[in-house]
C-alpha cells in the first residue's frame, strides 16, 4: 500500500530520499530543455510549445498512474496531499507569476536548473525570486485577510466542482491535453512554414 511507511527509514534516510527525488526532477527539467529561458519564453510567442507539451504530458501521466493505482486499491484512501483551494489568491498570484515568467524567462524549478548549469540569467532570476519573496513576507500584513480567506474552499477537487465521478474528469483531462497537443503541433508547423525555419 502507498504511500510508503517512511518512519522506518529515519530522519536522515527520508531527507536523502528527497534529495534523490529532487535529483530526478532537476535532471528531467534540464533534459527537457528548461534550463534555457529561450525555450521557455518561446511558449508565449507560439514558436515552440515545449512547455505545454512537457507539462501536460507529465500531468496526465501522473494522473492516470495515480488513478489506476487508486482503483486497484493500492493507495490508502485520502492519504495523497491535495493542494487546498484558495481561489482568488491563487488566481491573482498565478497571474502575477505568469507576468514574471514571461519577463524573466523561468519559473522557480527551471531557474534552479538553469543556475546550476551556470546560466547567468538563471542565477539572476533566482536572486530576483529571493527579493520578491522577501517583499511578499514584508508586505503580507497589508493583505493578510485576502491571503487567508478569499475564496478559501479547503480541499476541493474538479470532480466535486463539476459533480461528476473522478473517472469522467480523468477522461476529460486526457481529451483536453490531446486537443492541446494537436493544436500545439499545428501552431508550430504554421510558424515553421511561414518563417521558413
Amino acid at each position: 500500500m502507498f504511500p510508503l511507511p517512511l518512519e522506518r527509514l529515519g530522519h536522515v534516510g527520508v531527507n536523502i530520499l528527497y534529495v534523490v527525488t529532487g535529483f530526478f526532477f532537476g535532471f528531467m527539467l534540464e533534459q527537457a530543455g528548461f534550463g534555457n529561458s529561450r525555450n521557455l519564453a518561446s511558449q508565449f510567442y507560439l514558436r515552440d510549445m515545449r512547455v505545454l507539451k512537457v507539462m501536460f504530458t507529465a500531468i496526465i501521466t501522473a494522473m492516470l498512474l495515480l488513478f489506476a493505482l487508486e482503483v486497484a486499491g493500492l493507495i490508502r484512501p485520502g492519504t495523497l496531499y491535495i493542494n487546498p483551494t484558495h481561489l482568488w489568491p491563487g488566481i491573482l498570484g498565478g497571474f502575477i507569476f505568469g507576468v514574471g515568467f514571461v519577463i524573466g524567462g523561468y519559473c522557480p524549478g527551471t531557474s534552479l536548473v538553469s543556475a546550476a548549469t551556470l546560466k547567468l540569467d538563471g542565477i539572476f532570476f533566482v536572486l530576483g525570486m529571493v527579493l520578491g519573496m522577501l517583499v511578499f513576507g514584508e508586505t503580507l500584513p497589508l493583505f493578510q485577510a485576502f491571503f487567508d480567506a478569499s475564496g478559501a474552499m479547503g480541499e476541493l477537487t474538479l470532480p466535486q466542482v463539476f459533480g461528476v465521478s473522478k473517472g469522467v474528469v480523468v477522461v476529460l483531462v486526457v481529451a483536453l491535453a490531446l486537443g492541446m497537443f494537436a493544436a500545439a503541433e499545428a501552431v508550430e508547423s504554421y510558424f515553421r512554414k511561414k518563417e521558413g525555419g
Partner: protein
Amino acid sequence: MTRKMLPYLNPYVAGVLLGVVLTGSFLVFGHGLGASGGVATLTGTAQAALMPEHASRSSYLVGLVLSHEHPLDNWAVFEILGVALGGLVSGLISGRLRVETFRGPNLSVRARLGFALLGGAIAGFGVRLARGCTSSQALSGGAVLSAGSWAFMFAVFGGAYLFAWFVRKLWT
C-alpha cells in the same frame, strides 16, 4: 565540458518521464514535487539569521521557517538541493554546463540580467501569494485534480500570454 552539446529530449518523452518522477513522489511521500517552497525556506532562514531583531516579529517567511524545529530540516530544502544537483549532472553529461546568458536576439546581456532579476522578483511574489509554483501547484495539484491548482495553472498561462505582447522585444 568540451563535450558536444546533445539535443534536448523529445518533449512528450520528457513529459512521461517527469510524470513518472511525480508519481513516484506521491507514492513515496504522499505529496508531489516542489521548488518554490525550498527557496522560500532558505530565504526566510537567511533573513532570520541576518535580521534576528526583525525575525522575532511576524514576517511571513520567517514564520514559515520557525514552524520547523530546525529551519533547514524541511523536505522542500532537500528537494531543491537535489533539483540543482540533477540539473548540474544532466547539463554536464549533455555538454550544456557552461557560463552563458540566454537572451533574445535584440537584447544586451546587461539588460537581460536586469529583466531576469525583475521577472524573478515578480514571480517570487506571485508564487508566494499563490502558495506554490509550476511544480507544487500546476504539476502536483494538477495531477490530483485540485480545483485551485487548475485555476492557478490557467491564470499563469493567462498572465504570461497577455503580457507577452508587451515584452516581445525581450525575446524576438
